[in-house]
């Protein structure tokens, strides 16, 4: 895999440096910043399904919640030392999330358009309700992951870096996925699934793979967030369908769905704005959030990068090539 030219590496390098240095620069905001990376992964994994493939899911939160619960259950029941159980738990969470994805995918991925959206919404909320009734995972009282060994404040730093690492891994993986013919295939499914089928594309296979890829990263992130927050509530933290589950959609839309950097940009702006609302508009922050959602959807449906792509199509590789050259781009 060859690396892109230096110019393209500038922005990622800056972000990488910023992310690595942050806990030292502003330790008071480590948890909030960790959530920025969580949001980035939320937005990127949502965009894989919604922006690139046209399957607008409100149920991705299920993978996140499954991963979170699986991880903490492993941590609760296996005693192999903190870090071993943590990473094992995360792995189990990811595997379980993929299993769930394959299972519900077989039913839900056959739905189209808004039926898929609402079906996934139903799954997301049902999962939360089921988890709050299941005593094995603590029922309505939720669960508490084991205490982080090490100095006070070490937990926030450790899980900050874990979240950051996950975000840093998710991005190039998706970039690689989109660069191959698989990326073209899911775009084709988005643009005209019937046509894709009529051309012989294995749409069911590609949809399931995309769905499972989302599930892996979300499942892993679930374990991270469960430990970062220190408490798992079935409806508010794990299967937070009406918060995280919908925000991931909005962030991708805000930044520009169907682009690589759009979800990242959208996540950053949305998260920072939300944190500002919570700090300065206490009491009315959720009202402001509802208003923000309406504003984004009504006034920025194409998102920032979507708008940029219409304004400057050449920058995105589109345009008429009057010089009828023989090849190359």
């Amino acid at each position, binding site marked *: 895999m060859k690396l892109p030219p230096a110019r393209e590496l500038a922005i990622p390098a800056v972000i990488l440096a910023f992310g690595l240095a942050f806990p030292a620069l502003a330790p008071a905001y480590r948890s909030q910043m960790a959530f920025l990376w969580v949001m980035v992964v939320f937005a990127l994994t949502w965009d894989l399904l919604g922006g690139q493939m046209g399957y*607008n899911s409100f149920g991705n939160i299920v993978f996140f919640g499954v991963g979170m619960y699986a991880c903490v259950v492993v941590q609760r029941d296996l005693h192999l030392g903190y870090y071993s159980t943590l990473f094992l738990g995360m792995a189990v969470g990811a595997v379980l999330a993929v299993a769930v994805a394959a299972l519900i995918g077989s*039913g*839900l991925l*056959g*739905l*189209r*358009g*808004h*039926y898929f*959206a*609402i*079906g996934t919404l*139903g*799954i997301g*909320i*049902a999962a939360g*309700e*089921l988890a*709050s*009734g299941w005593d094995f995972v603590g029922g*309505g009282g939720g669960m508490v992951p084991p205490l982080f060994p090490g100095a006070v404040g070490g937990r926030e730093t450790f899980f900050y870096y874990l979240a950051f690492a996950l975000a840093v891994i998710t991005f190039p993986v998706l970039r690689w996925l989109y660069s191959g013919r698989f990326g073209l295939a899911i775009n084709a499914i988005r643009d005209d699934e019937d046509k894709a089928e009529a051309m012989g594309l294995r749409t069911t296979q590609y949809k399931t793979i995309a769905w499972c890829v989302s599930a892996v990263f979300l499942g892993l992130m679930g374990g991270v967030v469960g430990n970062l927050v220190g408490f798992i509530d079935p409806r508010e933290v794990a299967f937070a369908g*009406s918060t995280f589950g*919908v925000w991931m*959609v*909005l962030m991708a*839309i805000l930044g520009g769905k169907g682009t690589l950097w759009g979800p990242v940009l959208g996540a950053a702006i949305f998260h920072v704005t939300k944190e500002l609302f919570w700090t300065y508009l206490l*009491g*009315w922050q*959720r*009202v402001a*959030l*509802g*208003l*923000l*959602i*309406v*504003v*984004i*959807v*009504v*006034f920025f*449906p194409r998102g920032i990068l979507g708008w940029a792509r219409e304004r400057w199509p050449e920058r995105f590789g589109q345009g008429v090539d009057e010089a009828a050259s023989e090849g190359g781009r």
Partner: protein
Amino acid sequence: MDNLRLLFSAPPLSLQLLLDGILIGAIFALAAYGMALVWGVMGLINVAQGELVMLGGYAAYFLYRAGIHPLLGVPVAAILLFFLGWGLYRSVMFRVVDKDLFISILATYGLSILLQQLANGLFGANVRTAESGFGTLVLLGGAVTIAEIKLISFVAALLTGAALLVFLRRSRMGQAIRATAQNARAARVMGIDTDRVYAWTFGINAAICGASGALVAMTWIVHPYLGLPYTVRSFMIVILAGLGNVVGVLVAALGLGVAENFAGFILGAEYQAAFIFGLLVVILVWRRFSLARQRRYLT
């Protein structure tokens, strides 16, 4: 499943659940009609449907607090909510009408959060009821009881639904609405102001929700987070019955009311919400597989 065994050993219990389910089903039907109206005419799925119901409930509650009998809350809530719906269309929804359906889902979702949190902030999260002061009917020698208010709500819901149908059939605006639902472009060519039709449609939907909300407040309770289950129920009923199917919506709604009641009893109240959402998924997947055999898709 002790509760299940109980049902078999005491048949009047089943009758009770059945009756209660049918009675509440009529209210579900109202909200579902409104959703079908907005969906069929404007191509919008209104995720804030439940919040409109909730606001109607609060209207009835505040009337009751002001000393007015909450039954009057039904028409008052309907009128107030009509203006709210009209206003929402003119300020926000008109921008979303011609965009794709997914955008309308998100926009109305944002609206639902907004309304829900406003209600929470203004009215507080406490559960309220609008006492209507009606008694209880006792049947079958005490084995089955029906709160009179539930019966009254049932009748009121049916009347409201009938009034809606008459309006759509007979009035000029009603006809304009139906024409626009069939073919918006043709309607415009014929001189119908589709923008105004949409505003009226959204307003009427809000009014219907307001009326059902008032009934809910009297018959049960109202609180700011009442909304989402009503939205999901309306959606389920509409996809089960199909958009144009008037009788189907009523039947599906009554069926849902009964099913929910039985599920709540057998599985326990905590699982009632899970039942609703789970049922939604089951219905969608079942539809999907039955259509797949004909190689068609739910659109």
